[in-house]
């Protein structure tokens, strides 16, 4: 197929009419405003206006054309590169250089980056805001059920002891006096706090100096914290801090936030390879940022509550100072925050100056210290 250098106004093509699979050799003629397709026998297969012609995917050696708005999948294929270039020059939507495709891809990239940014913004601001609004609306019964479900999970995570000793202290005969001392301490705090739901406080066999509150009023104080405490006010301060979490329904809020983040990152993003790690990291970072505010609020609540109950609010500060200075390995729910110093200062400042009334006498304090002694 050798032609002169002058513009080609006609060339060979292969045409499929979109009605049958028959393959037809056709003559393609380039008229001023449209492209005319006719068979060897002179039968006309159609006239395609240049602005209705679109380029379809094909191997590099073939220019495959379709017609926009056509009711069928009719196709015209040009295999002569020179003639393909002639059509390219005339049809606005045919673009063999790939510039249009590149532009399209840049637009996609720009939009997905914007979408990612907006997703992160929703995760940073939206999720805690929604969880915060939603939490007060949840009825107490739902919170209790949620607490039970979380409790089962947390217990199976924390209860790593061998067979023999129970997970909770204060059950064996030698521990009953310690349990009574704990009850006395908690009762005084609970009376001052006037919570809408009953508190359940247990000391559990874990070596870390820590404590945590679950949705629905379950508070776990770790054995390691009792061991580190030098007086009842320090234990009471930590429990008051956890009561703050219960009063603010932080546990429930955290569950809602966790669910929201799992949904945002896990489901919307889907699972591309390696995405699981990104989702996990994003969740961890965001959740620890959420809890920061909650911790400060619980500190303020604890100080307030200790003042109200006539205890020494500086106990919590002393305890934080102790465990913040020498962090235990492993779980760090209570002290998961770098600005322990700032918290200690804030608590000391807000503590009442009046002389505090002790929570326990010396005997009771000794009993509480040995609440995990029997087994």
């Amino acid at each position: 197929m050798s032609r002169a250098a002058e513009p080609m106004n006609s060339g060979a093509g292969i045409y499929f009419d979109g009605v049958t699979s028959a393959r037809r050799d056709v003559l393609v003629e380039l008229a001023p405003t449209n492209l005319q397709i006719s068979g060897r026998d002179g039968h006309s297969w159609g006239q395609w206006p240049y602005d209705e012609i679109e380029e379809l995917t094909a191997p590099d050696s073939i220019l495959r054309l379709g017609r926009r708005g056509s009711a069928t999948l009719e196709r015209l294929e040009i295999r002569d590169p020179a003639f393909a270039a002639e059509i390219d020059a005339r049809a606005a939507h045919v673009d063999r250089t790939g510039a249009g495709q590149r532009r399209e891809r840049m637009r996609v990239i720009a939009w997905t980056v914007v979408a990612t940014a907006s997703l992160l913004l929703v995760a940073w601001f939206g999720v805690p805001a929604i969880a915060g609004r939603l939490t007060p609306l949840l009825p107490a019964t739902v919170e209790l059920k949620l607490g039970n479900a979380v409790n089962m999970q947390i217990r199976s995570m924390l209860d790593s002891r061998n067979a023999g000793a129970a997970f909770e202290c204060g059950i064996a005969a030698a521990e009953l006096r310690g349990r009574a001392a704990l009850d006395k301490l908690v009762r005084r705090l609970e009376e001052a706090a006037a919570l809408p739901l009953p508190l359940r406080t247990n000391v559990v066999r874990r070596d870390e100096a820590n404590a945590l509150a679950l949705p629905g009023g379950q508070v776990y104080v770790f054995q390691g914290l009792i061991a580190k405490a030098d007086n009842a006010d320090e234990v009471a301060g930590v429990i008051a801090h956890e009561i703050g979490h219960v009063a603010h329904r932080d546990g429930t809020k955290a569950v809602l936030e966790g669910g929201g983040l799992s949904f945002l990152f896990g489901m919307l993003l889907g699972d591309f390879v390696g995405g699981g790690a990104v989702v996990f990291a994003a969740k961890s970072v965001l959740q620890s940022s959420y809890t920061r505010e909650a911790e400060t609020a619980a500190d303020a609540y604890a100080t307030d509550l200790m003042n109200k109950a006539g205890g020494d609010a500086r106990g919590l500060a002393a305890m934080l100072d102790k465990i913040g200075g020498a962090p235990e390995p492993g779980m760090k729910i209570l002290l998961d925050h770098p600005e322990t110093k700032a918290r200690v200062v804030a608590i000391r400042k807000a503590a009442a100056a009046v002389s505090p009334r002790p929570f326990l006498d010396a005997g009771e304090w000794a009993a509480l210290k040995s609440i995990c002694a029997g087994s």
Partner: protein
Amino acid sequence: MTGLEAGGIATGGAVRFLGQRRFYWRLLIRGAVLLMVTLGIYRFWLVSDIRRFLWANTEIAGETLEYTGTALELLLGFLVAIAILIPIYAGFFLAALDLGLLAKLSGVLAFAVLGLLGQYAIYRARRYRLTRTVYRGLRLHQEGSAWGFAFRAMLWWIATALSFGLAYPFQLASLERYKMRNTFYGDLRGRFEASGFALLFRGLPMWALLLAPFGLAIRGFLGVDWQALADAVAQGGDDVMSKIEGGNPGLGAAIVFAMLMTATSIALAAILYPAFQAMILRWWCSGLRFGDIVVHSTLRTRHVYGAYARFVGYAILFSIVMGIIGAFSLGVTDTAVSEKFDSANQIAATLGLLVGYVVAALGFSTIYRATVLLSLWQLGMESLQLSGLSALETVKARGRPSSALGEGLADALNVGSY
């Protein structure tokens, strides 16, 4: 061009793959980078690009396939799928909270419902892909009930599990018959004629080789005194393990033996996997029919091993490069951090690890796609022998494009494919 002029019909060896590996590598690497930048949202565009490349470069009897699907369709299908899945997930979450009988059942129920939905999605996604495949100006399409397929598939999976895999060939054959008899090119109906028995006989030696170590391991346990063991466990105490050991001197040896046998089995499975894949692919291709068109595959097992060898080669190269980069950046941070190791540095280190992990995962998956998956496509296509191609001249258009919901569901449930 070859001798396939208009009207000329090839009657054998008529399938060619025209794509260039270099171009495919570029497409995949660019896609991997963009996946990372967009936290995975780019996958709809990447998958569409991949399909366009594979389809357009596959030439059957002188004409190439055309993929007409778009990324926006996939994105929309995914969003609709999410809207359907949210209430389902929320329901399971609430059921799990309820702590009653429902909570105990909710795990099983979730497994069954999501499994069923996954199979449903696979069938619907296949329908989407077929109706976006155009060949000689006509599209393919798929009829049949997706729920019917999903129930069949679930029952077959249970049978396969209960029979230690022996039912698998019959599962493949039965499900493939269902898919293919509902598959049309225009008005030309497909069917599937390979038999489960044929695959079973070919695969039986492999199956026996993989399960034999397990059989030996179980025989090792038969010598153990189970009654004494149960007593020792029931007694409890700190020294359960020593009591068990004392009562059963053979137990420790049996456990070690079982672990060795399991390792043997896993190693064998890894070595035999390419042969298994080649066997299935050859059997499957040779069973495909469209009207008078008969397909036969001459795929060579050693070519599939060649593809895996290339994957291993590239993967080792990639690991070495990653290792060097990792060691270098570790050295840099080490000297910078030695004075003070505060939380900011800790965060930076964690972030570095995370990026490294994601890069490694995406890298290996890209290499796998560019070597094994592309080769399987190319080898599978080029080893096809077609006869009865004159049927291609008289096919009439039929079928309409379907929605991308199936693709979206498959994506959200992680059962998607090409």
